[in-house]
């Protein structure tokens, strides 16, 4: 109940912001009868109506995870974003091994198994990507070894 109402309210706010920002779109000298604004405005209006339905006719409350799981999910997101930024400067092998270990540990709390998974995936996928698919991946940064 509450989740749908909150989400519906967020949808309405985002839709209004979207409509407002659609009105800011600069008109061009080459104009067609509809212009660049109309379709985004229609989308925003329909989305806001759907948000309204969610506020007034919410479904049953979904089964949200406990605080510990939410924490684990937040850590996963941070790790994934970190991985995205580490891939280029630190090469493929080390960030992949670390990230895969953490993800594996999050799914099943078996530390040794997770480390082996991380190492195995890092090396195995590198071999596949580099030699079977010919992708230009850098294993480790230049000058490290």
């Amino acid at each position: 109940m509450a989740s749908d109402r909150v989400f519906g309210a967020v949808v309405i706010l985002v839709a209004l912001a979207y409509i407002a920002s659609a009105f800011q779109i600069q008109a061009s000298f080459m104009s067609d009868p509809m212009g660049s604004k109309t379709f985004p405005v229609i989308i925003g209006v329909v989305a806001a109506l759907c948000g309204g339905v969610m506020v007034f006719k919410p479904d049953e409350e979904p089964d949200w995870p406990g605080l510990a799981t939410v924490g684990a999910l937040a850590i996963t997101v941070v790790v994934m974003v970190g991985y995205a930024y580490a891939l280029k400067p630190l090469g493929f092998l080390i960030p992949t091994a670390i990230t895969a270990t953490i993800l594996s540990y999050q799914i099943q709390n078996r530390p040794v198994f997770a480390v082996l998974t991380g190492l195995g995936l890092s090396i195995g996928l590198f071999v596949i990507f580099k030699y079977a698919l010919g992708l230009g991946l850098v294993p480790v940064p230049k000058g490290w070894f």
Partner: protein
Amino acid sequence: MDMDILANLSVGFGIALSPYTLMLAVIGCFLGTIIGALPGLGPSNGVAILIPLTFTLGLDATSALVLMTSVYYGAMYGGRISSILLNIPGDEPALMTTLDGYPMAKQGRAGDALVISGVASFVGAFLATVGLMLLAPLLANVAYLFGPAEYFALYLLAFCTLGGIASNNQAKAALASCIGLGIAMIGLDNQSGMPRFTYGNLHLMDGVDFLVAIVGLFAVAEVFFFIESHGKNTSIGVVLDKVRVPWRDLRACTGTMIRASGVGFVAGVLPGAGASLGSFLAYMSEKSIAGAKGKFGTGAPRGVAAPEAGNNAAAGGALVPMLTLGVPGSGTTAVLLALLMTLNITPGPTLFTDRPDVVWGLIASLLIANFVLLAMNVPMVKIFVKVLMVPPAVLLPGVTMISFVGIYSLSGSYFDLTLMVAFGVLGYVLRKLDIPTVPVILGILLGNNMEDALRRAMILSDGDVSFLFSSPISIGLWVAAVAGFIAPMFLRGVLKKPQAVTD
């Protein structure tokens, strides 16, 4: 007309039977069956994470299409393995196969269930490919009559039926479409060249790459779900001992397979309806034909044959609107449409006249792939059963890494990778709230085309809105769209989906 098809088909086989294309088809079938069989990696996820990699391999259009559609067909075959042995459907359409497949496996008839469903998959996919061959050129001719007003109505129909059928709540389905369409608007306006919703961010000028959205919403979101469940809902599964061909059951299922293929194909051809509806209708119609004596739901061979034939026939049928009109009929065909767009192939009636090599090479490869898949999935099924033993704690990190490397090698930008993670979070929240994610993908894929169609219609009519309803085709499409959106609200009570069997 018939001569045309034969001539075209021979051109197609000329392409498909080249050793290189044949090799790609076999690799695709093999990968696809594995992807389908892996619990937690459905056809849409599997095809989604492979597209960026295929693209970076630099394959030409026909080869890439042959490879990926073989993966698609293979995943439809492979999905039944985890449905039957683990009671875990790889995706929505495979749910119906668990209803009788898992009880059969528990009775010690796992081998029989796998063979029956494998043959049913073959019959469904084969008949659907023949249907595709006959129907697609006809529909391509009709599609020539489509102007912008008709195309706009067609896109609307796809959103309405997809949302209406796939979701439990029309508002949520419509919202999902709006999210996708809204995201599609980001970037330079096609007509005026002005930036929209970019807020000065250069990365957003080209718009949001649909592959980033697809991989995020499907694959990354799946990782979050596995972390939440700690891989616990992977039930223990049943052991497979001997695989023999149950000829008596197969003969008894012949009628079922053919009828289910017909039902599945028609459901697949409807834009937006897709494979879920195909397997559902096939199962329900066979259940009512068999009556109480059929013992559906307790491990009836026909209850395994019907949804598998229906599911695979729908997968083939869904290619008809995708190729002729550019409107996908299911989540996985939406992903295949993304592949076509990445390869710069514009689906539509002109595809059949401009690129017959692509269309007929693809159709011929599908026919060949079916025989390859039958061989892989009946005599060699034991190899793929081993795949089920991959624990989620290895599989999901692997999927994540493949997703990252795929998107990274495609664009090389941190921004896209971060955006992919953001789509993963969005996908998790949406699925938690029972908001379907396939319409979001469809919106991102079709948003610009849909707007273009509407704007061109308005240019033609000089702003007269009634032009949208001025031809019999467009009126028909509007009526179908409204009906497709509203009808499920009333039919939901009647067409209640059977619940999955629990241990």
